[in-house]
């Protein structure tokens, strides 16, 4: 049996179903997380010294903090099992992957453990986030005048 034929054979048995339940859970949980973010912005911007932009930043810091805290307490991975992409795609997923890496390598020391490995999973988000920010910044500057 050649590789192609074998691949076809394995495809026949491997599960491929589209999981409607997962989609629904992710849709609802992602939406609720968005709602929570919006509520936080509204609450923060009620303070007279905080502008709308600052309130948005504070909202993100709050979500990052909560996701990291729940990861540290050990139940955020169970939430992901339930809600899947709904809480992985928002900034909570980024915070979770960073914190879980830090926890994993804590035993290997502050520099060669946490320092070297904390962005093991989330490093590409940071790198390509910065690269694309530059790229789109240049495009905006050149074509739309900044």
């Amino acid at each position, binding site marked *: *049996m050649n590789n192609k034929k074998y691949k076809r054979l394995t495809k026949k048995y491997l599960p491929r179903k589209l999981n409607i339940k997962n989609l629904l859970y992710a849709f609802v949980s992602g939406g609720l997380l968005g709602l929570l973010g919006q509520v936080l912005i509204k609450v923060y911007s009620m303070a007279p010294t905080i502008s709308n932009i600052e309130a948005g930043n504070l909202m993100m810091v709050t979500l990052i903090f909560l996701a990291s805290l729940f990861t540290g307490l050990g139940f955020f991975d169970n939430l992901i099992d339930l809600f899947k992409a709904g809480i992985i795609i928002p900034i909570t997923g980024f915070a979770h992957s960073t914190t*879980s890496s830090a926890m994993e390598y804590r035993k290997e020391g502050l520099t060669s453990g946490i320092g070297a490995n904390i962005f093991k999973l989330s490093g590409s988000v940071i790198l390509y986030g910065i690269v694309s920010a530059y790229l789109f910044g240049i495009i905006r500057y050149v074509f739309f005048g900044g």
Partner: protein
Amino acid sequence: MTIKFDNIYIKDKAVGGGPFIKDGPIKKYLNFKYEDFLDGENSYEECEIKELERVINIIRERNNIDLVISSDLSNQLMISNVANRRIGLPYLGLYNACASFCEEIIVASSLLKNRNIKNVLITTSSHNLTSERNFRYPTEYGSLKKDYQTFTVTSQTGMLLSKEKTNLKIECATIGRVIDYGIKDSNDMGSVMAPACAYTLYEHLKDTNRTIEDYDLILTGDLGKYGKEIFKELVLEEYGIKLNNYDDTACLIYNKEDNRVLAGGSGISCMPTYFLTKVIDRFNKKEIKNVLLLATGALFNTTLVNHKMAIPSICHAVSVVRE
């Protein structure tokens, strides 16, 4: 390549099980259980080392051991190395991934032909979270799992092989070849290992002039729920062998209704844990007379997977007979 053995017997065994195993269908046969993945230690690795030592000590208290052969899934056999440093007996470390159990039987049985080696202990160890860290993601990371992924068994086993006659004999063994059919997905271990398994089964039957009906039970290692079906169809199409009396230990080691274990068990300890508990029990109850063990291993590390190379696999067969 098939080797015959004349006077190699299974003299003693010990099995310790952790989470999921201790509640599974084989729980009543375990020598000891531990409640969680740390069992009072600081790291998962230290926990695994401790449990492996416990297994070796149980057998050591009852028997003389001339040599220990160990295998586990950590990088460079860290678990076996540290446990054996504390045990302090002559030691060999072997690695063929999850095919190691049969590999160890083959090496131990061959070494037992020496006059001054009388008892050889072979051990296996796997731990769900140390393998998760070694092969996949950080343990706290909630990665999205595929339905066909397997769930590494947390258990440690020891089996003492001896020239002293008992009722269970290692009769012959077939050494497999490294095979790949171009599968690159490290989550899909069943598809990776099924071809090696089919090949070794075919070679074994050809070398020994036997048919499937000559065995009361044929057990594969850890192909999983989907790999098992792929294997069945592959041996039928490729070699014209129709399997009956066949099962896969990955599908038997956990509770069937538990969907957290996805496609079933895997890991070095998966097959020996089931074999040394349930199968030995069936031997002793005289329900079966001979068993063919097909331990399958996917021979990859993270570098190979990240370089997107096809994953090689191997399978060794061992036939065990009740006398």
